């Protein structure tokens, strides 16, 4: 039999001005199961709390209902007080007499009656409360960072500098990501490699960071604090421990005509290669798809010339498993590839290039050593047309969003071009100039006012080639929408930023949600921008949406801060408001029929399959089990379960039913 204590608060006059608090307490005392009821001016004050604690001890209360303000305000206060008096904190509930009653109704008998009803409802619920214990989960203080672009680099360094262990995996032979490909960066025009390389080196040398290059996540199990990550270390065909990075192998490799990914196809590389001279780690891998030995069993030149005997053709992929407490996703983005722009002739005319290719042309480390020369004949283009929003903001091409970075980098490109080719002319076709950011608008204005980039508002309909010129047919919408034709030497497409290949697959492996464009989804766009909906997995950088470097680095540090915050505790404490699958009457039996409707309902993949075995160890049936680390307590599963086998602690079927019935009972 329950012994409930009811405490009605006046909140000064906030409640008592319209509700007859004395009467509410008196009526409450008459409710079945109520042992004690009283009212007081300020329940949350020290004397008020003392009053509750004493009553618990003196009357041996098994539950407490506070009729006061919103539980969103003071539930923690009162639960703490109860715990101090030895009552399980989850046996304490609040009835909202202030926000939901006294403040929204006029003084009258009906208002007092409503208050009484509200108390009755919570008494009914509290009677069915069960003692619960906060869930404690131990934490493995080691983070996994996936993706070694500037986002992953920054997050790794921040976490490592806080004294925590980091494993960084990068699927390419080197870390650095897109930033390593850039020439100079807006809005300050500092050299990308100059600011990035020191950080890459720091990653490689940091005692708290283990870097696995040429590696990918194979699978992931477990939950926040205790993930188990299986990582595939792709065979490099070169033993990194013996290799000194001397470079003899790639200077002798006969396969020299492989388009270099790093140079966005504008340069060539060998089959054994490092993507670029400053690569980290600076040891080569063999690209099996292009190596003569793997293709037809002949060659092995590299093996012959290698002074240290580092070539290891037959070494297979390796799988390793790591215990991980938290994960940072930093897999970045990609730019839209050919065939999306048949009207612009991309892929058909060599001098129609993407912005990323332009970066390589403008970069001192690029195929032209920083001179702007067009790919077809190496001539310096005298007229360059830049086309903004190429693919972006184009629902017809399936990309309705704005890629955010291209307005800025197009201004940068026009500027760099004008700096390098003084007598040249640059034209930018744009729809809007989106330059929101510190010093961004000023940057664009400089391109227009000081460097003389010709901005034309309008889209380009098509580009075709004639007599070695690219005829660009666009429009100037600010001049009565009359067509404009420019005979250009080179056309640069500000092609849309899109999600990285493999992003969807990775998200599914990790149970992270993603948007229709396969960018990973944050838990809340404003208030949880670096969290995912899966506890313990954070994200940063351009894997979330196209982002520039300042935004990428801020989110990376944000994600790192979340990880460090998590790792600052030894254990994780969580509210026990989670679902459970009933195992009554005896542990062996469950009414669960194994339909797994709950599994389809759960937004957090918290439902697991559990086999029930008999004494002989044979499987009798498979039932649902809730992973308490993943369950967030939404209760969606409960309303899906037909056999009412799954229920949620603190909001059980029985309790909710009792609460509703208490309203209707007269």
């Amino acid at each position, binding site marked *: 039999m329950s012994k409930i204590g009811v405490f009605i608060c006046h909140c000064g006059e906030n409640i008592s001005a319209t509700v007859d608090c004395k009467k509410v307490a008196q009526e409450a005392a008459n409710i079945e199961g109520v042992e004690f009821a009283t009212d007081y001016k300020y329940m949350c004050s020290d004397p008020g709390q003392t009053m509750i604690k004493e009553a618990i001890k003196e009357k041996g209360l098994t539950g407490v209902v506070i009729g006061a303000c919103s539980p*969103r305000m003071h539930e923690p206060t009162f639960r703490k007080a109860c715990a101090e008096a030895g009552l399980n904190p989850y046996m304490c509930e609040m009835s909202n007499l202030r926000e939901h009653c006294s403040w*929204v*109704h006029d003084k009258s008998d009906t208002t007092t009656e409503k208050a009484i009803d509200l108390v009755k409802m919570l008494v009914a619920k509290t009677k069915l409360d069960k003692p619960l214990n906060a869930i404690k989960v131990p934490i493995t203080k080691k983070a996994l960072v996936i993706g070694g672009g500037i986002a992953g680099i920054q997050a790794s360094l921040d976490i490592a500098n806080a004294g925590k262990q980091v494993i960084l995996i990068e699927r390419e032979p080197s870390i650095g990501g897109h930033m390593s490909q850039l020439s100079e960066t807006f809005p300050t025009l500092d050299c990308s490699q100059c600011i990035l390389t020191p950080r890459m080196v720091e990653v490689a040398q940091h005692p708290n960071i283990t870097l696995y290059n040429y590696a990918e996540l194979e699978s992931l199990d477990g939950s926040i604090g205790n993930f188990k990550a299986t990582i595939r270390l792709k065979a490099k065909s070169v033993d990194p421990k013996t290799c000194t990075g001397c470079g003899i192998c790639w200077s002798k490799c006969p396969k020299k005509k492989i388009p270099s990914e790093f140079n966005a196809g504008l340069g060539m590389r060998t089959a054994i290669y490092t993507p670029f001279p400053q690569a980290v780690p600076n040891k080569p891998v063999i690209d099996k798809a292009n190596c003569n030995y793997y293709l037809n069993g002949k060659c092995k030149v590299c093996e012959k010339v290698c002074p240290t005997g580092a070539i290891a053709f037959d070494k297979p992929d390796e799988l390793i498993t790591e215990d991980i407490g938290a994960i940072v996703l930093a897999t970045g983005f990609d730019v839209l590839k050919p065939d999306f722009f048949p009207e612009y002739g991309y892929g058909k005319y060599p001098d129609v290039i993407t912005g990323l290719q332009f970066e390589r042309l403008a970069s001192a480390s690029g195929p032209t050593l920083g001179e702007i020369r067009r790919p077809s004949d190496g001539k310096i283009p005298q007229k360059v047309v830049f086309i903004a929003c190429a693919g972006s903001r184009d629902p017809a091409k399936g990309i309705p969003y704005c890629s955010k970075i291209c307005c800025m980098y197009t201004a940068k490109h026009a500027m760099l071009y004008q700096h390098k080719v003084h007598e040249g002319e640059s034209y930018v076709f744009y729809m809007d100039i989106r330059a929101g950011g510190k010093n961004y608008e000023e940057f664009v204005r400089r391109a227009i006012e000081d460097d003389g980039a010709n901005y034309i508002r309008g889209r380009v309909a098509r580009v075709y080639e004639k007599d070695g010129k690219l005829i660009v047919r666009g429009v100037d919408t600010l001049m009565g929408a009359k067509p404009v034709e420019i005979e250009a030497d080179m056309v640069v497409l500000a092609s849309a930023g899109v999600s990285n290949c493999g992003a969807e697959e990775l998200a599914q492996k990790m149970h992270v949600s993603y948007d229709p464009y396969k960018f990973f989804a944050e838990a809340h766009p404003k208030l949880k921008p670096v969290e995912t*909906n899966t506890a313990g997995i954070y994200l940063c950088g351009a894997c979330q949406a196209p982002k520039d470097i300042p935004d990428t680095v801020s989110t990376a540090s944000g994600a790192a801060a979340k990880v460090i915050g998590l790792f600052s505790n030894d254990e994780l404490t969580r509210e026990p408001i989670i679902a459970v699958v009933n195992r009554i009457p005896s542990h062996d039996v469950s009414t669960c029929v194994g339909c797994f409707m709950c599994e389809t309902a759960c937004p957090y993949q918290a439902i697991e399959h559990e086999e029930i075995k008999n004494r002989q160890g044979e499987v009798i049936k498979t039932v649902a089990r809730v992973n308490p680390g993943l369950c967030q307590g939404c*209760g*969606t599963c409960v309303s899906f379960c037909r056999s009412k086998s799954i229920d949620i602690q603190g909001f059980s079927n029985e309790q*909710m039913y009792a609460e509703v019935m208490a*309203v209707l009972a007269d």
Partner: protein
Amino acid sequence: MNNEFEPKIVAFVCNWCTYAGADLTGTSRIKYASNVKIVRFPCTGRIDFMLLLKAFANGSDGIIVSGCHPNDCHYTSGNFHARRRWILFRSLLDFMGIDVNRIRFAWVSAAEGAKWADIVNDTVSTIREMGPYTEYRKAASFLAENEVELAKEMEVPQ
């Protein structure tokens, strides 16, 4: 005035949006009719429609179900589940002889205090016009007899 019918209305709301929104109505001191009593759920996804049927079967004249706006669900998708099942639920109500106008499905965010007051007032006056729900005993026995079948009916194929 005193003789006017005062309907009993139960509001099933989620903790994160509408409950907080109703708190804001209070903080802003916006007045509304006192007929509605709020039951707090973690999420609209938790709101089992059998529970709503039981509320009707036990004499509720009207019901409000309210949670986060689409895409704003604290738990990502609970409200989508609720919305999908709502379609089935309407036909079920119809089948049981309950006018669908007795139930109001709404979205009220934590910032929409005034909207909550409007919804309550609006629902109260609608139900007041419709008069008391008198066939509830019939509904109760119907529910008692067919509970399992009804539960099956509410199952949503994915």
